[in-house]
């Protein structure tokens, strides 16, 4: 017997000892499991928010993200240029291909459309959607949406269409189920800059990932 069979038979034997053990796959049980998977019922939810955008902004700021808003996506580069210069940060970096068309150079920025490498200091991404409950970005990995862009650079900038803000993570999963059949290789939920509290339980921003996360809300 291989390890798999041994473990499975141990499980079976352990559970057969109790009356409550229900390992045997009766028809009724199989139907119950299948319908549970098909229905994927939700647990207790947070109270509904009146204003998703306001709720999202409030939560994101609480978790140390910076938030800016533009009425037109063409203004995103100017906002980013201002943000970087105020903090004396480098003005070159990389972006996802979908954002390559924004007027970066007009704003004095050097943003290249390619996945991030170790030495890139600014990474500009979009997001699949965002969650108001916790001020969280949901990122789906893919050829056009490399995961490294939000991970390696010290500054992560996410351009987010406010219409893609949903209330809860449950809503985010449903959006994913609707638009894709299955999750991509990596789904990353990001809630602010990387941090550690390992030394003396003191929260320090900027561990192995970005030191700062800037969210720019703009219709895309």
């Amino acid at each position: 017997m291989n390890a798999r069979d041994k473990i499975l038979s141990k499980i079976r034997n352990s559970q057969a000892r109790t009356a409550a053990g229900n390992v045997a796959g009766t028809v009724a049980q199989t139907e119950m499991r299948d319908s549970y998977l098909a229905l994927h019922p939700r647990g207790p939810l947070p109270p509904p928010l009146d204003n998703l955008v306001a709720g999202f902004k409030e939560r994101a700021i609480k978790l140390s993200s910076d938030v800016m808003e533009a009425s037109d996506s063409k203004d995103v580069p100017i906002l980013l240029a201002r943000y970087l210069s105020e903090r004396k940060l480098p003005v070159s970096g990389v972006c996802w291909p979908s954002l390559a068309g924004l007027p970066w150079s007009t704003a004095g920025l050097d943003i290249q459309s390619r996945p991030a490498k170790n030495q890139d200091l600014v990474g500009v991404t979009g997001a699949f959607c965002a969650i108001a409950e916790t001020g969280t970005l949901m990122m789906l990995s893919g050829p056009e949406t490399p995961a490294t862009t939000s991970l390696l650079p010290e500054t992560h900038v996410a351009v987010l269409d406010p219409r893609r803000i949903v209330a809860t993570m449950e809503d985010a999963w449903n959006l994913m189920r609707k638009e894709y059949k299955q999750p991509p290789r990596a789904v990353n939920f990001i809630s602010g800059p990387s941090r550690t509290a390992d030394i003396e339980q003191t929260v320090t921003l900027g561990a192995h990932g970005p030191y700062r996360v800037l969210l720019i809300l703009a219709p895309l």
Partner: protein
Amino acid sequence: MQNTSINFKRQVTIKLADVKLQGALSRLQTRFVEGRAAVIGEINDLQETRTAAAAIRDRVLNDLEYWLLHFEQQATARGAIVHWAETGADVNRIVAEIAARHGVRTAAKSKSMVSEECGLNDALELAGVEVMETDLGEYILQLAHEAPSHIVAPVVHKNMEEIADLFAEKHQLPRKTDIAELCREAREVLRPAFLNADMGISGGNFLLAETGSVLIVTNEGNGRLVTTLPRVHVAITGIEKIVPTLEDVTTLLRLLPRSATGQSITNYVSVLTGNKDSADHDGPEHFHIILLDNGRSSLLGSEMQEMLRCIRCGACMNHCPVYQNIGGHAYGWVYPGPMGSILTPLLGGLENAPDLPNASTLCGACAVVCPVKIPLPDLLRKLREKQMERGMKSRQETFMLKAWAWLALHPAIYAIATKIGVRLMRILGGKEKLLHHLPGARGWTDGRDFPAPAGMTFRELYKRGGHK
């Protein structure tokens, strides 16, 4: 990790006298206990959510074979390779084989308590693979050759000064004087390790049956790096970590970080499914998932099954008066605090950890904060009963308990015996009204005095009050 729980009592004495440790532990209380209290109320209906979380875990545990097989099928369909390991040694062997098959020379690792169970790092070093811990806390421990003392904050027992000394010595860089500088130094030292690693090793907070995914929660970003950059990713976790659906895991995620560190959500929640696609720019080419039993299956269907609901948040130890005073190392294995006092004897043998079920005041704080409603004090009590049944209590304790049981069944003799007892103790207590020694209870009176009784039993006083 070698189990040294047998030395518990000796360790306690040492830890109680350790001034630095006591300072570190009081910090844990303020940061984590107050942190949890500040955010747990954000949950709309906490009790309803805890009940739902416990039900999700029970659904899986009561039908574990089915959910494991469903997970395996989904994960395999997406290109992951699922391995099964009966023991920690089997995990080590499997990881070494994977490393050999893919020509792995260096591995970058994010925090995994299950890998601590196995003692994976030592085994990989023996197999010629250089392993780098990348979670800041675990990295510090690797440099210092120490074991974690908390499942969420592994280096809670060390202060900033000690870490600054350690970094200065090991990195050969000028000694840093604040926490942010230390963190930056670690980031700069470790970045090349991520970029050069052939293999990334992670744990798994949850396994999603619906999608065949491994979910990890992290704050530092190292978990994302080790699962994104290296060409091989190995995730190691326990067979009990399965959760049926994305909705179920969302319910658990509302509780886990709030209970653990007082965060509404961890910085990163990563759901990893299958290998890199040919068109992808990043992600591992090979994804291996190792499911470890190591005694877990034997708890199923037993009166201890509820322990397998545990989602490793650490709240029970943060709130435990015993842990708060002795820290994690005294417990002698990977898992400390109330959950460790139950898991260590269950997974490693009651005879190897005879003191742990007694390392609790049964104050009940752990059960109140546990997000999946594990009745920890009840389970501790059941373990104590098991010790009794197996005659593992000291002879003296057994004799005293038997004597008391006999007396309790004979009320008239009980009344006389207690009358004599309290009068004797009053005389022995003298003017101070304190007993410095109590025959048969040296362990108790060594550290404190026993207040002498007033000289009459409760029954006498009750009668005197005019009751019949």
